[in-house]
């Protein structure tokens, strides 16, 4: 039975492959046949004119066929990338975080990330896409794209000339979902679900949208491609390929602010609060690693060689950082842990995010290795020294790793990989452009400032209106029961 079904499967695959090959052959054969037809020798002026007209028509048809083929190829990769980035949130990040909490807070933690998948999506359609990517000033997009007006299926060359604008919109949406979800790690096990929803909606508007616009939006202050837009647009070109500042610095720094504002969990650090299931955390981290190929290689906004370069760097950065964190842990505690290994990989993925499309694979190894050790130090030493309760280390991994990655991008960026300032022009510090490191520093400083101020204001408003923390009794009982009325693991049946 099994052998038969395998044979059947192979037959189906072969049929699919051969029909694809045939389809490709037909598409190629058409222009060749037509061209052969029009080069038949004939010398009267009328015939010449007809031939030229036919040739021109043919050239135009070829060009549009080539454009359609490229759009099909690029769009296929971008749709897959968008799906991969959504997979990073749920189940990736959701499991990564849920495994690290106590078993009374599992569903509460999963729901915080899942809620972002729903709420941020609706908000994106209504207003935040327009605020991030509409053409406004250097700091914030305009309102011309609210309710996705004007966001159709034709490409917008300002963003990506070879994919439908809606693909670009939905791809960027996945980034807008995971960014606030990352913050939830800092306030895990103690925040009210209702307060979390209000906080995140305001945060998407006040912090994420302006930062995304400044770095990636048309005419944004930090946009590398925005120099031509005039005014403040592109005044400080900051290299951020896939969201080191936009995603990781903003979420990580906001996480730290939230952890400090909310205070520690009841009993922290006196009571033991070990992770309830590192198996879930492990699965989540590995899903994050795979999803990150969509995050970084997808940020090439096409399926060309830049996507390959970013894909390779992403993988190398993660691997080196896993080794870095584990090695540091091995030396310090005498044992390399599973949690340490996957934490290191995530830290490396964070750090390589801004540079993925600008650095060489060997530079990616260095960026990963440095970050793995650095984030280990941040999580194990610095956090305990200051005593703040960044529950799942959203700051230690994303804030610290994102900041370091953004700066290292300014050091390692190479024009051979991505001639973003023109072919052969020096890009990073090591190529002889020290100015870029300063630009990176300014970009990071803007992300830090915006996150601190924006998050503080939102926290204050939500705290004074509906209150941020669950009551003492609800916190002891756990978020699963107190916020959602259900339990992750039913031990009685």
């Amino acid at each position, binding site marked *: 039975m099994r052998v038969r079904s395998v044979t059947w499967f192979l037959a189906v695959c072969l049929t699919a492959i051969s029909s694809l090959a045939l389809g490709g052959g037909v598409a190629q054969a058409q222009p060749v046949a037509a061209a052969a037809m029009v080069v038949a020798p004939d010398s009267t002026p009328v015939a010449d004119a007809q031939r030229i007209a036919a040739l021109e028509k043919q050239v135009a048809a070829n060009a549009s066929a080539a454009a359609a083929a490229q759009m099909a190829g690029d769009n296929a990769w971008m749709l897959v990338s968008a799906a991969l980035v959504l997979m990073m949130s749920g189940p990736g990040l959701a499991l990564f975080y849920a495994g690290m909490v106590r078993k009374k807070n599992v569903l509460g933690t999963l729901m915080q990330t899942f809620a972002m998948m729903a709420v941020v999506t609706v908000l994106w359609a209504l207003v935040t896409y327009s605020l991030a990517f509409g053409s406004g000033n250097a700091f914030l997009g305009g309102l011309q794209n609210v309710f996705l007006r004007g966001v159709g299926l034709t490409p917008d060359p300002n963003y990506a000339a070879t994919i439908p604008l809606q693909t670009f919109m939905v791809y960027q949406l996945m980034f807008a979902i995971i960014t606030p979800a990352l913050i939830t790690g800092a306030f895990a096990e103690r925040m009210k679900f209702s307060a979390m929803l209000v906080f995140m909606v305001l945060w998407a508007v006040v912090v994420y949208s302006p930062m995304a616009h400044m770095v990636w939006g048309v005419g944004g202050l930090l946009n590398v491609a925005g120099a031509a837009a005039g005014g403040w647009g592109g005044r400080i070109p900051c290299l951020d390929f896939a969201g080191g500042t936009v995603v990781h610095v903003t979420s990580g720094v906001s996480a730290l602010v939230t952890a400090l504002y909310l205070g520690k969990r009841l009993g922290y650090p006196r009571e033991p609060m*070990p992770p309830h299931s590192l198996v879930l955390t492990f699965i989540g981290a590995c899903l994050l690693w795979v999803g990150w190929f969509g995050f970084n290689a997808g940020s090439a906004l096409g399926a060309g060689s830049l996507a390959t370069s970013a894909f390779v760097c992403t993988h190398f950065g993660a691997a080196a950082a896993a080794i870095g964190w584990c090695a540091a*842990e091995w030396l310090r*505690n005498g044992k390399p842990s599973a*949690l340490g290994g996957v934490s290191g990989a995530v830290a490396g993925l964070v750090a390589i995010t801004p540079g993925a499309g600008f650095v060489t694979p060997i530079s990616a190894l260095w960026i990963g290795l440095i970050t793995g050790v650095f984030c280990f130090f941040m*999580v194990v030493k610095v956090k305990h020294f200051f005593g703040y309760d960044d529950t799942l280390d959203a700051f230690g991994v994303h804030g610290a790793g994102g900041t370091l990655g953004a700066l290292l991008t300014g050091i390692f960026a190479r024009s051979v990989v991505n001639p973003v300032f023109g072919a052969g022009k020096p890009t990073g510090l090591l190529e002889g452009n020290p100015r870029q490191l300063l630009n990176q520093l300014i970009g990071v400083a803007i992300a830090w400032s915006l996150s601190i101020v924006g998050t503080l204001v939102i926290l204050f408003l939500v705290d004074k209106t509906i209150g941020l923390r669950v009551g003492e009794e609800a916190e002891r009982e756990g978020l699963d029961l107190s916020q959602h009325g259900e339990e992750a693991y039913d031990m009685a049946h």
Partner: protein
Amino acid sequence: MHKIEAVIQPSKLDAVKDALVEVGVEGMTILEARGHGRQKGHTEFYRGREYSVDLLPKVKLELVVKDELVDDAIQAIISSARTGKIGDGKIFVSKIDEVIRIRNEDRGETAL
């Protein structure tokens, strides 16, 4: 009749069960338990936080046997559960006044 309660290493459960069946014990109850005696626990590290875990996983067996079987049963547990290392567990023996089978209200040794 006596009740024998034995706290043993989880990895020794099958050996102990086989040894008990061999000397003629017909029924037992097994509980997954956590505990410690003089044995020290161990330390775990999660992202630099150190936790000392002093309640270790154990298995607890409970069996009630006729008086003449008590010594054999105890000996069977000792010989099959011993590794010689700290943490092998303990055996507690106590007298049982009455046993009642719920199905037909048999009492005493016939209910065992």
